[in-house]
């Protein structure tokens, strides 16, 4: 069993997703039970994977026993284990929230949800560039359907943009994979790293073109500055549990940048090492500025949270732009925090909107909330965390990241990051005072179902928990950054057949 553990995060959602498709309508209780049960199972698998990877050993699973570099491998190291566990934690909150009724607004919610998880987990685990493309497509196809779940004009229109843009992005992905294969003759990322170190000089230009095109594709997924315009509308229009799960989707892009450029274009790549860093650094600052302005201008709570996701993307990219192991460690801590908290805020926005009648989540005067006290308390906690104020986890993440910036980078990063934090506080306090205090009429909203409370509390509760566990967590992220900085261990484990292959 333990040899097949690595492939479980892909196979479990796949099988459960197929099972859930047997019946399109009806049997709601059973479907919910299976969906939540499978996500819970994924959480356990994630914990087991982290426990296994924490020692620092890199293990791999060769699909069909085709050994690397020829076959497709799933690679487990500290980073991929951490991301799989994070996905499972986020998904559990989202799926329980969806069980309160969102899943019955359309068909096949739970099946698609599981496939989305399969795509995300696969993208985190794979060690093969083309396989990464395939898993990107799996998660995108599921996300297209989930984004449109329940229908409605807003969703369809934002869906058109999202789908067309991502299809164009997929074409670009294939072209860049083709170029890299043509220049190096391999698709396995570890093998590619080895081949790059002995690359003939005439192929260098090709590899640079391919690598930077890959950056465009990952930038599209992560929503970097000139490629983010699809995000706010799509996230604001998506059903709440889907938007919460989408909080990890931008991080898939961040993960891909981190993985590909640390492994393939690491120190060993000679003149090609770190070729993305200059681009990522300036684009991250630009993303921060634009996203901050967007957050200040947002007239809808969900749009505001979507822009806060963008702010977090800018912050994470700045960590990649600095590039030292300390910065990567800080960005990984911040990544855990921001994924869970923004996911929770999307869910919370839905609950607030449900109690405000016609006004919904728009930041205008509406009817008072029936359960305003609790909602306000959760909103307050989430706002403090996401804006990066002490004592919650956002402050620690930002402080860690700022401490790693040196020299000129410090001059640029500190003011922009701190001002964006200030702007987030302004935008969130304005939103909060409008939502909870400026109201007319009488409260006639329904009481909210307990499952929704659980979903939000599960995700926003992560903020204080991340502070309490900051010590062991930063130990883990530091070890992860160390492992990323020295990709030779991974290369050796994969190419010398020392791994744990079934």
């Amino acid at each position, binding site marked *: 069993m333990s040899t097949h553990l690595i492939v479980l995060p892909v196979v479990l959602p796949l099988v459960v997703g197929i099972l859930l498709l047997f019946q399109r309508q009806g049997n709601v209780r059973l479907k919910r039970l299976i969906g939540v049960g499978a996500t819970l199972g994924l959480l356990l698998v994630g914990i087991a994977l982290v426990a296994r990877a924490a020692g620092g050993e890199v293990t791999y699973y060769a699909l069909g026993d085709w050994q690397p570099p020829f076959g497709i491998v799933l690679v487990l190291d500290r980073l991929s284990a951490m991301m799989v566990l994070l996905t499972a934690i986020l998904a559990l909150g989202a799926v329980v929230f969806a069980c309160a009724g969102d899943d019955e607004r359309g068909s096949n919610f739970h099946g698609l949800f599981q496939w989305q998880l399969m795509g995300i987990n696969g993208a985190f685990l794979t060690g093969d560039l*083309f396989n990464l493309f*395939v898993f990107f*497509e799996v998660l995108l*196809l599921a996300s*297209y359907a989930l984004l*449109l779940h329940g229908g*409605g*004009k807003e969703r*369809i*229109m934002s*869906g*058109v*943009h999202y*789908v*067309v843009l991502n*299809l*164009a992005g*997929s*074409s670009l992905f*294939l*072209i860049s*994979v*083709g*170029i890299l*294969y*043509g220049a190096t003759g391999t*698709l396995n990322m570890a093998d590619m790293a080895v081949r790059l170190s002995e690359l003939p000089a005439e192929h260098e230009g090709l590899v640079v073109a391919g690598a930077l095109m890959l950056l465009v594709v990952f930038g599209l997924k992560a929503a970097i500055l000139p490629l983010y315009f699809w995000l706010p509308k799509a996230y604001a229009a998506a059903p709440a549990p889907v938007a919460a799960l989408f909080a990890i989707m931008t991080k898939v892009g961040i993960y891909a940048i981190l993985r590909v450029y640390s492994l393939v274009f690491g120190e060993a790549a000679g003149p090609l090492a770190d070729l993305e860093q200059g681009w990522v650094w300036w684009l991250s600052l630009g993303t921060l500025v634009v996203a901050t302005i967007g957050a200040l201008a947002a007239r809808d709570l969900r749009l505001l949270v979507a822009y806060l996701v963008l702010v977090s993307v800018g912050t994470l990219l700045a960590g990649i732009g600095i590039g030292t192991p300390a910065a990567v460690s800080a960005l990984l801590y911040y990544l855990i925090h921001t994924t869970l908290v923004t996911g929770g805020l999307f869910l919370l926005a839905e609950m607030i909107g449900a109690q405000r009648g016609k006004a919904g989540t728009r930041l205008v005067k509406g009817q008072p909330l029936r359960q305003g006290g609790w909602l306000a308390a959760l909103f307050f906690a989430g706002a403090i965390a996401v804006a990066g104020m002490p004592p919650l986890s956002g402050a620690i993440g930002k402080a860690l990241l700022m401490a790693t910036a040196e020299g000129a980078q410090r001059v640029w990063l500190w003011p922009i990051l701190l001002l964006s934090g200030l702007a987030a506080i302004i935008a969130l306090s304005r939103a909060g005072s409008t939502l909870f205090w400026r109201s007319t009429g009488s409260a006639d909203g329904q009481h909210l179902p307990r499952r929704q409370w659980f979903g939000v509390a599960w995700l926003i509760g992560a903020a204080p928990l991340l502070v309490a566990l900051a010590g062991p967590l930063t130990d883990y992220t530091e070890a992860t950054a160390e492992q990323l900085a020295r990709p030779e261990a991974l290369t050796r484990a994969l190419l010398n057949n020392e791994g744990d292959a079934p």
Partner: protein
Amino acid sequence: MESLYAITTGVLTACGLYLVLRSRTFPVVVGLTLLSYAVNLFLFSMGGLTTDGAALINGAKEYADPLPQALVLTAIVIGFAMTAFVVILAMRARSEAGNDHVDGRKHEAGEGRR
């Protein structure tokens, strides 16, 4: 042969790119299809073009790189599914918004001429 192949791929890409940038959903869908054709051709050539080579390596000295063929097959399947999806989505958007503009806008000034 190489130049003919390269020109074909390039023309397909250029046409696809132009059509993707149009403002109506139908040309956009056609453009995406052309782009995926171009990409499939490109992937096919990424292992280098071999004429008269063996398709199966059975002791043959000269053989075609088998990996791109497998990749193209995967890319075709995925591209086909995506195109089917985007066609349905475009039709839904047409019926929801009442027109086929990608932003769901009504007619703009000067657009009737085309």
